């Protein structure tokens, strides 16, 4: 697992209070990890903080799975 994916996983586990083994690449934040729309806003803020990236609202709307987050961050981090 890449360094980005490890750090994303850690944030998701901490913010959503879910078991680490549930945070697979294909896991959907809402359908599989019990997040609501506000939890996603908070997750996106935590990703921005951790990786020093800016994730605009329209981009954030397309981040629905762990994989989406990993890919966006890999592509946009400084």
């Amino acid at each position: 697992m890449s360094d980005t994916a490890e750090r994303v996983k850690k944030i998701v586990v901490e913010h959503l209070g879910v078991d680490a083994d549930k945070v697979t690449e294909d896991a959907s934040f809402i359908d599989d990890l019990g997040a609501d729309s506000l939890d996603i806003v908070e997750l996106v803020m935590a990703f921005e903080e951790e990786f020093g990236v800016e994730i605009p609202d329209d981009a954030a709307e397309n981040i629905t799975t762990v994989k989406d987050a990993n890919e966006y961050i890999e592509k946009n981090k400084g």
Partner: protein
Amino acid sequence: MRRVVVTGLGLVTPLGGDVETSWQNILASKSGAGKITRFDASDHKCQIACEVKPKDHEFGFDPDKRVDHKIQRQVDPFIVYGIDAAGQAIEDAGLEDMSDEMKLRAGCSIGSGIGGLPGIESESLVLHERGPGRVSPHFVHGRLINLISGQVSIKYGLKGPNHSVVTACSTGAHSIGDAARMIREDDADIMLAGGAEATICPIGIAGFAQARALNSSYNDRPEEASRPYDKDRDGFVMGEGAGVLVLEEYEHAKARGAKIYAEVVGYGLSGDAYHVTAPHPDGDGAYRSMEMALKKAGMSVGDIDYINAHGTSTMADTIELGAVRRLFGNQLGNMSMSSTKSAIGHLLGGAGAVESIFCILAIRDQIVPPTLNLDNPDEGTDGVDLVPHKAREREVRAVLNNSFGFGGTNASLIMKKV
């Protein structure tokens, strides 16, 4: 008329994360006061408080027992305390598995005097230092006063009235009184009722200190600071925590074979219409509140054995006592009156609920809790049993609990043995 009884209790206090630990420590004359550990208070006039202890402490509170990790991260501590105390009360009442029909007739009336002050303080700093885009999306609903009632209703599926009182330090008592009325008025059969507070944060301590309400000369002797009715009292000690009761319609409780602690028989309310922080010097509002509670209970002064006083360890203590003396007259010599704030501090919006629970336990165990640190009773306390230093066994048939709040808002509750 529909009668209202108490069938479950839950407590989070500076002396315990549950009812029995808190109560046994109260009866053992222990103090929950200490130096403030939540933040560096060294530049504050008041540097002490009665904090809820961490879970590894002998009297600690473990938030993980009943509150999801995710919710703990999103909300202020007063909500965490409130959810846990409500959960304890539900378990104590044997209501973990309510039918859908019962849930439609079960509600919440859990309030707070101030709400999420620590979170308002810290998130204001985030806004100021890092901009609006860094403010938590959970900021608002993690701080709102009615969100204990909200969270508890969601967690346990309670679909009846969802109410929340905000009357400063009278909140807990008003919450119980209002909820009892809702049951009496047939709005619900079961109500989770109580209050919570957690404002031991820099702006909370500074604000009350600047209002000259907090103690300031006991920083090196925290356990001696809360001393209601004592000549050397100089302001209240801030406490934190929550108290929640299950109130239930009497026939409903009987039909399901519930354990019944006490009946809520009297509720009095009044306004001082005098000053924002000081009570009326004659104790007029307090007098009328107690008088109304007695009248509603259909009781006379001779029926009350114990008063859990508002008694905050401020100048107002003797004003309350004056009002009690005026109302109870000679009967005062047969009663006991104490302030458990001497042990756990002032829980503000949680006080009336926590103290009502102590009243109910006094009825259950036929023992009255002590007023700690009452070394030199102030003038005007003659002939009153203020239960100094040690708890005492005695007959306790009915109890009166007083709560008075900023704004001149007064509430009195009377509970009795069933």
